[in-house]
């Protein structure tokens, strides 16, 4: 109580363990992200500037530049990515426009079909396009004298695979609009085209930029598609695979991975800068825009949706059909032989079981970790204050790190003989961790958004009522965030089921996942069993999605009745 104490800075005197626990948990989360994200990527950066003796040197870059064909691979990767972006984003924009801004019937159906490519590995598209347009393809004539094996096939399959990613962003970007702007434009008798150019497009421009960068990054880092349908067309992602898996040249792989990391990181840095400049386009006074029926606009959009949906379903149907046909194209009798002999008897079905385990574990481990970390960042106040921005940055980083790059980082880090975690290499554990880290950012953002939407005073009220923070987390925060939690776990499950990129470097013969086995089957020329495996994955994802839809419907309507209440 003396005068001198008044001048010294005050610190919270919290002696009870429950006051301090959040701080410790936060530190623990930061440490885990350090070990499983920062260090592997750091190792990759370090690995690329070391020679074989571990001395600092730039020789690897020199070697890389001197490798014949590398310049071509860089150029090919870039121009294909640009073409894919220029096709995929406009296609997705008009599809999203039809769903959100027009009175097209069956909007829910178009939306689900538009996202259907997410249900399978990216290879599904590649396999299917081979069947449609390949040497024995049904629609081969459509390509004229061009072969599907090469840039054309890569572009088609990548557009197909990246379409839902662009669609998700654009559907959100077009979800809300200020109806008053359209009324003002109408009052000034602006033409339909002028309204589109002056009201719709400017409001969606951030979404468009974001979608373009996501598609570009996807195309640059996608490796399964060029591997399957690319023929002799060289791209960087395949080059990494060849260097690391084919030639066991980890150092060279690291250099190529670094090259891959740069454009993707640049794209995400640009996106981050642009999004920061975005101001709330919708103020509290905005009147939501509700489209009115207008067949001049709706009919062409409906036809467009039907064409797109047919094309997308055509891809999935062809993959399923291939898996059931005896010997394409000579014996078209339907049979389950690819499933029975190609998968079960050949022992490849274990891969499917591995994938199921992997997906379940990824969802079970990733969901609580990601949600709790977001909670600690957003809702607690103890622990070092500089840790929160650092954790936020670490959570945002995986979005800019292609799976291939993460995989190589994991090899370099966990395969290092001096690493005490060395034993993790090749195990299911490391694959689960790689999946959680690889898909961290989207999940983190989902969790953060739902946590931010909760009144920020709940914790204060609980503290004033002397109720532990964790009681409030369990009784209030978690139930309120349940839809987000379900979303995160479904997202993790389906991505773990379908991903190839990071896992291709981490599996052992015992832990081979289904999605990677498709690649191996294709390499062995077993297109039928490959299609069968792809179909199994798509079916599993579909069933799981339906189960989730059912579960959330049940949970939200039966046990969370408060959500639907109106005064």
């Amino acid at each position: 109580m003396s005068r001198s104490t008044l001048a010294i800075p005050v610190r919270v005197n919290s002696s009870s363990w429950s006051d301090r626990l959040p701080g410790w948990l936060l530190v623990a989360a930061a440490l885990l992200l350090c070990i499983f994200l920062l260090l592997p990527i750091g190792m990759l950066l370090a690995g690329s500037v070391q020679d074989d003796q571990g001395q600092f040197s730039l020789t690897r870059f020199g070697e890389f530049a001197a490798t014949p064909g590398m310049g071509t691979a860089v150029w090919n990767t870039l121009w294909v990515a640009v073409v894919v972006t220029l096709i995929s984003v406009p296609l997705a924009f008009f599809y999203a426009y039809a769903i959100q801004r027009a009175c097209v019937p069956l909007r829910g159906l178009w939306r689900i079909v538009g996202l259907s490519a997410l249900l399978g590995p990216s290879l599904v598209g590649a396999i299917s396009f081979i069947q449609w347009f390949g040497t024995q393809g049904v629609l081969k004539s459509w390509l004229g004298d061009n072969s599907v094996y090469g840039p054309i096939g890569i572009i088609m399959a990548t557009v197909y695979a990246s379409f839902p990613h662009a669609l998700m962003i654009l559907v959100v970007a077009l979800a809300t609009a200020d109806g008053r702007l359209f009324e003002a434009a109408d009052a000034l008798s602006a033409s339909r085209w002028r309204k589109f150019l002056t009201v719709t497009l400017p409001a969606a421009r951030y979404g468009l930029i974001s979608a373009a960068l996501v598609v570009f990054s996807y195309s640059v880092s996608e490796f399964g598609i060029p591997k399957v349908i690319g023929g002799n067309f060289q791209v960087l992602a395949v080059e990494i695979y060849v260097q690391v898996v084919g030639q066991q040249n980890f150092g060279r792989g690291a250099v190529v991975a670094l090259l891959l990391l740069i454009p993707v990181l640049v794209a995400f840095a640009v996106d981050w800068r642009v999004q920061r400049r975005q101001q709330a386009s919708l103020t509290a006074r905005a009147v939501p825009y509700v489209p009115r029926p207008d067949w001049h606009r709706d009919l062409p959009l409906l036809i467009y949706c039907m064409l797109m949906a047919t094309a997308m379903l055509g891809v999935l149907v062809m993959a399923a059909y291939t898996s059931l046909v005896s010997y394409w194209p000579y014996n078209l009798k339907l049979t389950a032989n690819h499933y029975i002999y190609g998968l079960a008897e050949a022992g490849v079905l274990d891969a499917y079981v591995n994938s199921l385990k992997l997906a379940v574990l990824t969802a079970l481990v990733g969901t609580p970790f990601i949600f709790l970390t977001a909670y600690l960042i957003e809702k607690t106040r103890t622990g070092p204050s500089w840790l929160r921005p650092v954790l936020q940055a670490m959570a945002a980083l995986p979005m800019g790190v292609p799976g291939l790059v993460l995989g190589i980082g994991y090899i370099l880090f966990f395969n290092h003989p001096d690493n005490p975690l060395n034993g993790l290499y090749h195990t299911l554990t490391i694959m689960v961790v790689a999946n959680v880290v690889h898909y961290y950012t989207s999940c983190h953002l989902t969790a953060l958004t739902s946590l931010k939407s909760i009144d920020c005073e709940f914790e204060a009220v609980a503290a004033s009522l002397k109720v532990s923070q964790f009681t409030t987390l369990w009784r209030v925060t978690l139930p309120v965030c349940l839809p987000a939690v379900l979303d995160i776990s479904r997202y993790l499950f389906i991505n773990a089921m379908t991903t190839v990129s990071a896992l291709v470097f981490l599996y052992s013969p015992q832990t081979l996942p289904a999605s990677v086995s498709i690649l191996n089957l294709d390499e062995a020329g077993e297109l039928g069993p490959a299609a069968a495996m792809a179909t199994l994955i798509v079916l599993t994802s579909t069933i799981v999605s339906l189960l989730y839809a059912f579960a959330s419907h049940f949970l939200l309507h039966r046990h969370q009745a408060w959500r639907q209440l109106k005064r």
Partner: protein
Amino acid sequence: MDALFTRLPMAHLEIKQLTKRYGNFVALDHIDLAVEEGEFVVLLGPSGCGKTTLLRAIAGLELQDSGQIVHAGRDISRLSPARRDYGIVFQSYALFPNLNVGANVAYGLNSRTGDRRAARQGITQRVEEMLELVGLPGTESKFPAQLSGGQQQRVALARALATSPDLLLLDEPLSALDAIERVRLRSEIRGLQTRLGVTTIMVTHDQEEALAMADRIVVMKNGQVQQVGQPQEIYRSPGNDFVADFIGRGNLIEATPAGAQHIRAGDLLLRCRIEIDQNRKHRFYVRPEDIRLHNILDDCENSFTAQVLKYEFLGPYSLVTLDAKTGQSRPLVAQFSSNYLDGRPIHPGSILRIGIPAEHLRPMPAAA
């Protein structure tokens, strides 16, 4: 120890030299404040004045850079929120949406000690009692979304009071409500507070609310206390220009001395109630409602003619902007109640005779 006990008795809540900075921005600048037991104190000021920061510092939700808070003889300045003794109500109600009203009110009531069944019964009873108290009996099983804003705020109040805290903190509790509900709830809160005798600190930016509810008002600006006093005191004799401006309307009149009790402002010679220092300028403050309207020929003390510049009819009263040759840059604003005017029309351009009674010329300190 003896020296401590022989000192003047400490106030129930005492804040000493509390300071809080955000970078270069000073949110709280050496705040001193003493709140007596059972008192209803309102922190009033424009946004950014530090009133909410002060409340949150008392709650332990913001940590001061320096200074001390003593509550009921206990130094709480470094305690975490959970280890202080208060209930809090926020502008947003902060009701848990997934819990019904009963569970919300019971949230802070502990059932872990002793006989479970008896404890649970005790809780049920307490919840019933609290809901009765705030005028919402029988609403236990409803969810917050089913209640109106005013009802939700009553539940939040019941929840905050259920644990019988020694201090009640209200953070703009009425701001989210519509005008009618706001007026109703403010008298309910005040009534409840008087009945329970709980020491209460409320933050608001609404001067009318502050005047209507407070035992004492603390006017704040730029992180500093401008004036502390009872509502009448604050309204009748504002301590400085800011308080005068912020609370109610007013006319500031700068004048030169013109005799022992007389001043000159422009063309006007006015008598006032205080002794006038002949060697300096003086500033006086006149509330618009203190300006009298006279018969045009009634030549009484401190009365003069003025031309109407603007007339605004506002229902129960009218505001009249007048050119009165007072020598001020701003015209004089007078407020006449409608029953006082009794339907007499006032037109722009017409000439009125108005007066400022000497006792309503309130001296102001020299401008800072």
